[in-house]
C-alpha cells in the first residue's frame, strides 16, 4: 500500500499531495469535528470540511483502498456477533482471573484465506477483542496470524480455537467480499 508517487519538475519524486484528500478520511474527520462541537449546524459542517481538507493536505497519508464491496446485512451480523463476543470474552477472562487453577495457554498459527491486507488487519483487530486471543505476530507475506490463546487445557482446544478464528474470517469475508473474487464468481 504505497502512496501515489509524482515526479516534480526538478526531478525529485514525492508522494502526490492532492491524492491525500480522500472522501472517506474527510468524512471521518468531519464526524470527529462535529462530535467535538457536540452540535450540527451548516456553519460547523463547512468549517469541518475545510479543517479536514487542511489536515489531509498538511499531513498526507497513503490512500486506503478497501478493495472490497460492502454487504450491509452480513456486516450488521458481524457487528452484532462481535458485540456478543466482546461480552463473552470479558466473562471468560473474569472467570480465569477469579479461579484458583493455574491457566494453560497456547500459541496457534492461523493461515488466513484472504489476500488483502485490509481484511487481515480487520480480522486481527477483531480477534484481539473476542474470547481467548491476542495477536502476537503477523506474517504479512503469507497472511498468517499467530495468536496467543488463553485457557487451552490441551491441543484439541487449540484446534477448536483455530476453527473459531477461521469462522470469523469467513463471516468478515461474506460481509466485505473482495472485488476480484466477486468478479471471478460472476465470470464462472
Amino acid at each position, binding site marked *: 500500500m504505497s502512496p501515489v508517487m509524482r515526479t516534480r519538475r526538478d526531478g525529485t519524486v514525492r508522494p502526490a499531495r492532492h491524492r491525500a484528500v480522500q472522501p472517506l478520511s474527510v468524512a471521518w474527520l468531519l464526524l470527529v469535528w462535529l462530535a467535538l462541537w457536540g452540535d450540527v449546524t451548516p456553519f460547523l459542517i463547512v468549517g469541518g470540511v475545510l479543517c479536514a481538507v487542511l489536515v489531509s493536505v498538511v499531513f498526507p497519508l497513503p490512500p486506503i483502498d478497501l478493495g472490497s464491496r460492502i454487504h450491509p446485512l452480513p456486516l450488521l451480523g458481524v457487528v452484532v456477533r462481535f458485540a456478543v463476543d466482546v461480552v463473552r470474552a470479558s466473562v471468560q477472562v473474569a472467570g480465569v482471573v477469579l479461579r484458583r487453577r493455574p491457566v494453560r495457554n*497456547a500459541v496457534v498459527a492461523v493461515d488466513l484465506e484472504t489476500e488483502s491486507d485490509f481484511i487481515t488487519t480487520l480480522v486481527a483487530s477483531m480477534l484481539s477483542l473476542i474470547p481467548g486471543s491476542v495477536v502476537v505476530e503477523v506474517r504479512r507475506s503469507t497472511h498468517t496470524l499467530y495468536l496467543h490463546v488463553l485457557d487451552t487445557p490441551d491441543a484439541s482446544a487449540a484446534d477448536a480455537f483455530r476453527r473459531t478464528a477461521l469462522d470469523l474470517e469467513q463471516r468478515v469475508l461474506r460481509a466485505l467480499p473482495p472485488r476480484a473474487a466477486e468478479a471471478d464468481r460472476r465470470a464462472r
Partner: protein
Amino acid sequence: MSWTAAADLAAAVCILLGAVLALLASIGVLRMPDLLSRMHAATKPQVLGTVLVMTGVALRLRDPGVVGLLALVVVLQMATTVVASHMVGRASFRSGQVRRDLLVVDELSDGPAHEEPRGAP
C-alpha cells in the same frame, strides 16, 4: 416509573458493571502468571468496562451533544487497546520473555524459521 428514573437506573447498573469489570481487569493484571496472559486481562474486560461506563454516563446526562464524544472515546479505546496489546505481545515474544511451561502448543517457535523481508509490518 417515569422514563428519567428508568434511564437513571440503567445508568447506575451500567456504571457499576463497568467499574466491576475495570476492577477485574486490574486483578487480572496483578494475578496472571505471565505477560501474555496479563494482556488478555488488560484488553478485554477493560474495553467492555469503558464501554459500559460511557453508556452509563450517556444515559445519565441525556444530552445528545455528548453522545458523539462518548462514542468517540469508545472507538478510540477499542482501536488503541488492540494496537498497544499487539505491540507489547510481539515485543515480549521476540525478546523470548515467555513462560514456555504454560504453553500447550507453540506454533510460532516450533515452526520453520522464516525471515520476513525487512520493512514488513
